[in-house]
C-alpha cells in the first residue's frame, strides 16, 4: 500500500519536473517558434537568482519572485538585442541562441566559479507509513509545475493579451494592420517564457544546487517534451510531460536515473517516427 503511494508520488514528481522545465520553452518555442537553445541557461540563471536571494537574506518565496523578474527582464533584453533581428530565420536563431548559451555558461563560470552551490529551504517531511517519508518541498514543486502550466494556458486562452498574442504569432502582417504593435507582443511573450524558466530554475535550485553547466541537463528534456508535444504547446507539454515523466519515473525506480533519461530519449525518437507532428497534431483534422 505505502509502496504504491510512494511509487505514484515518484511518478507524479517526475512528471512535474518535466512540466516545470518545459513550460517556459512551450511559450517561447511553442507559441513563438523561436528555437531558444539557451533555455537551459535561463533555468541556470533562475537558480543563481535564487542563490542571490538566499545570500542577501530574502525568504525563499521572494527569491523565487526575484528569479522570475530577473530572468524575465533578462529575456526581454535578449529579445531586444539578439532575437529581434532573427525572426523568420530559424537556423540563425538556433545558432545565435546556442552562442548565447555558451556565452552565459562562460560568463557565469568566470564570475562565480565552476563549483556547485546549494540553496537550502526548510520545509520538513511527511511520513508515509513506517518506512517512507515525502519531502514537503517536492509537493510544492508538483503544485508550482501544474500551476505554471495552467496559468500560461489560461493567459493565452482567456485574456485579451493572450488573444492578441496568438493573433500576432498566427499572422503578424494582418495583426499589425489592425493597429497592434507586434514587436511589443514578441517582447512580452519572450519575457514571460523567460520568467517561467527563471521560476523553474529557482524551484530546482534547492534540490539540484546551482552550477554553470546545469542547463545542459534540462535543454534536452525541454526540447524533447515540446517537440513531441506538437502544435498545441500547453496541452502537448502536459501530455509529453506525462508520458516522459512516467517513463523516466518507472525506469529510474526500477534501474537507474541514467537509464530513465535514455529511455525517454529512445521513446521520443520512436514516437516521432510515427507521429512526426507530435502528439497534438492538427494536420488532417479539418
Amino acid at each position, binding site marked *: 500500500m505505502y509502496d504504491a503511494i510512494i511509487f505514484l508520488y515518484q511518478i507524479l514528481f517526475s512528471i512535474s519536473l518535466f512540466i516545470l522545465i518545459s513550460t517556459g520553452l512551450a511559450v517561447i518555442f511553442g507559441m513563438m517558434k523561436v*528555437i531558444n537553445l539557451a533555455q537551459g541557461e535561463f533555468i541556470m540563471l533562475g537558480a543563481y537568482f535564487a542563490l542571490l536571494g538566499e545570500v542577501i537574506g530574502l525568504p525563499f518565496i521572494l527569491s523565487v519572485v526575484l528569479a522570475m523578474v530577473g530572468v524575465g527582464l533578462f529575456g526581454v533584453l535578449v529579445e531586444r538585442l*539578439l532575437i529581434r*533581428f*532573427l525572426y523568420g530565420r*530559424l*537556423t*540563425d536563431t*538556433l*545558432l*545565435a541562441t*546556442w*552562442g*548565447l*548559451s*555558451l*556565452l*552565459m*555558461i*562562460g*560568463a557565469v*563560470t*568566470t564570475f562565480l566559479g565552476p563549483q556547485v552551490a546549494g540553496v537550502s529551504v526548510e520545509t520538513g517531511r511527511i511520513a508515509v507509513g513506517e518506512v517512507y517519508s515525502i519531502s514537503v518541498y517536492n509537493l510544492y514543486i508538483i503544485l508550482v509545475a501544474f500551476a505554471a502550466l495552467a496559468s500560461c494556458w489560461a493567459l493565452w486562452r482567456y485574456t485579451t493579451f493572450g488573444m492578441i498574442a496568438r493573433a500576432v504569432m498566427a499572422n503578424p502582417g494582418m495583426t499589425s494592420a489592425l493597429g497592434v504593435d507586434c514587436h511589443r507582443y514578441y517582447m512580452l511573450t519572450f519575457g514571460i517564457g523567460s520568467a517561467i524558466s527563471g521560476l523553474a530554475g529557482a524551484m530546482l535550485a534547492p534540490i539540484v544546487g546551482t552550477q554553470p553547466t546545469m542547463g*545542459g541537463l534540462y*535543454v*534536452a528534456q525541454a*526540447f*524533447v517534451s515540446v*517537440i513531441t508535444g506538437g502544435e498545441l504547446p500547453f496541452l502537448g507539454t502536459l501530455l509529453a510531460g506525462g508520458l516522459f515523466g512516467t517513463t523516466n519515473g518507472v525506469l529510474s525506480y526500477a534501474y*537507474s536515473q*541514467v537509464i530513465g*533519461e*535514455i529511455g525517454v*530519449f529512445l521513446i*521520443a*525518437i*520512436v514516437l*516521432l*517516427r*510515427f507521429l*512526426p507532428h507530435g502528439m497534438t497534431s492538427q494536420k488532417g483534422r479539418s
Partner: protein
Amino acid sequence: MTPKLSTTEIATLIILALASVAILAVPKFAGLSLQLDLSIIFVYAILALSMGFMWGQVGMLSFGQTVFFGIGGYSYAIFALNTGDTTTAMLLAILLPMLVAALLGYFIIYGGINDIYFAVITMVATIALEKAVRATSDPRIKIGDVRLQGQNGIAALPDLKVPWNPSETLFVTEVYYLIFIAMLLVTAAYALLLRARVGRVLVGIRENEQRIALLGYDPRRYKLLIFVISGGVAGLAGGLYAVWGNFVAPEMMNLNASASVVINVLVGGKASLLGPLVGTGIVQSLTSWLGSAGVGQVNVVLGLILIAAVQVFPQGVVPMVSAICRWGLGHLVRLAQPSRRASATGGKQ
C-alpha cells in the same frame, strides 16, 4: 558525363595543393609539438567536413556528428585494447558509427523530421549518449577486458600499427602524415560524390525536396545515405582522435564539442568543401591560442564567435575571401591591360 571543373573548383584545388606542399614539409623544420597541434586540427577538420557537407550541400543540419565521433573513438579504444589489432579497430571506428547512423537516421529521416527539428533531435542524441557514457564509471562495467570508466575516459590506448607489419607502430610524424592524408582523401571523396549523380540529387534535395520527390527520387533514401556516409566520416575522425591522443573521453560527445563543430563550419562557410577546413583551422588555432594566453573561458569566446558569425558574416570566411579575391583579380586584370581599355574607349569615340 561529368561536368567540367568550375573556376571555384580549380581555385580550391590550387589552394589545397599549395597548402598540402606546405603541410607535408612541416615535419622537416618544425618540432613534434607543432605536428601534434596540427594533427588535431586535421582531425577536427574531418569532423567539420562531415557536418559541413550535409549542411551546405544537402541542407541537413546534424548537430549530432559528435555521436559518431565519440562512438568511433570508443570503438577504436575498446577493440584495440582488447585484441591489440589496431587495423580492424580503425575499420570498426568507421563501420560501427555507420550502423548507428543508419538506425538513428532511419527513425529521424523516415519519421519526416526536418530542418531545425532534425538539428535539435540529433543534438539531443549526443547529450543522451554523453550521459550514458558518463554513467559507466562502475568498475564492473566492461566490454571484453576494457573498463569504460565513465567520465575519466579510457587512457593508454595502443599506438596505431602498420597494417602489413604489426610489429611496427606509427609515431607522431607518421600519424601527422596519416591524418593529413585522411583529410585530403575525405575531401576528395566528398568532391567526387558531389560530381556524381547521387551528389546532384543531394543538391537537388537542398534546393527543393518536393520537386526531387516528384521527379521520382525518394529524398529520404538519399538523406539516409548521406547521413550514414557522414556518420562513417565522423567515426573515422573519432578513431584518428583516439590514435592522436591515445585517449578517449565523454568530452568528445558533449555539447561543447558539438557546438565547436558547428562553429568551425559556420566560420569557414558551409557553401564549399574548403569552408569547413579553413574554418576549423581558424577557430581551433584561435581557441588554443586564447587558451594558452589565459584569456578567461573558451566558452565565452566560442559563444561570441557564434553570435558574431550569425549576425555579421553568415556566409563564412571562405566566400568572403573569395569574393574579395575575385574583385581584386578583376581589378588586376583591368590594370594589366590598360592599352586594350584605352583602345576600347578610343574605339567608342
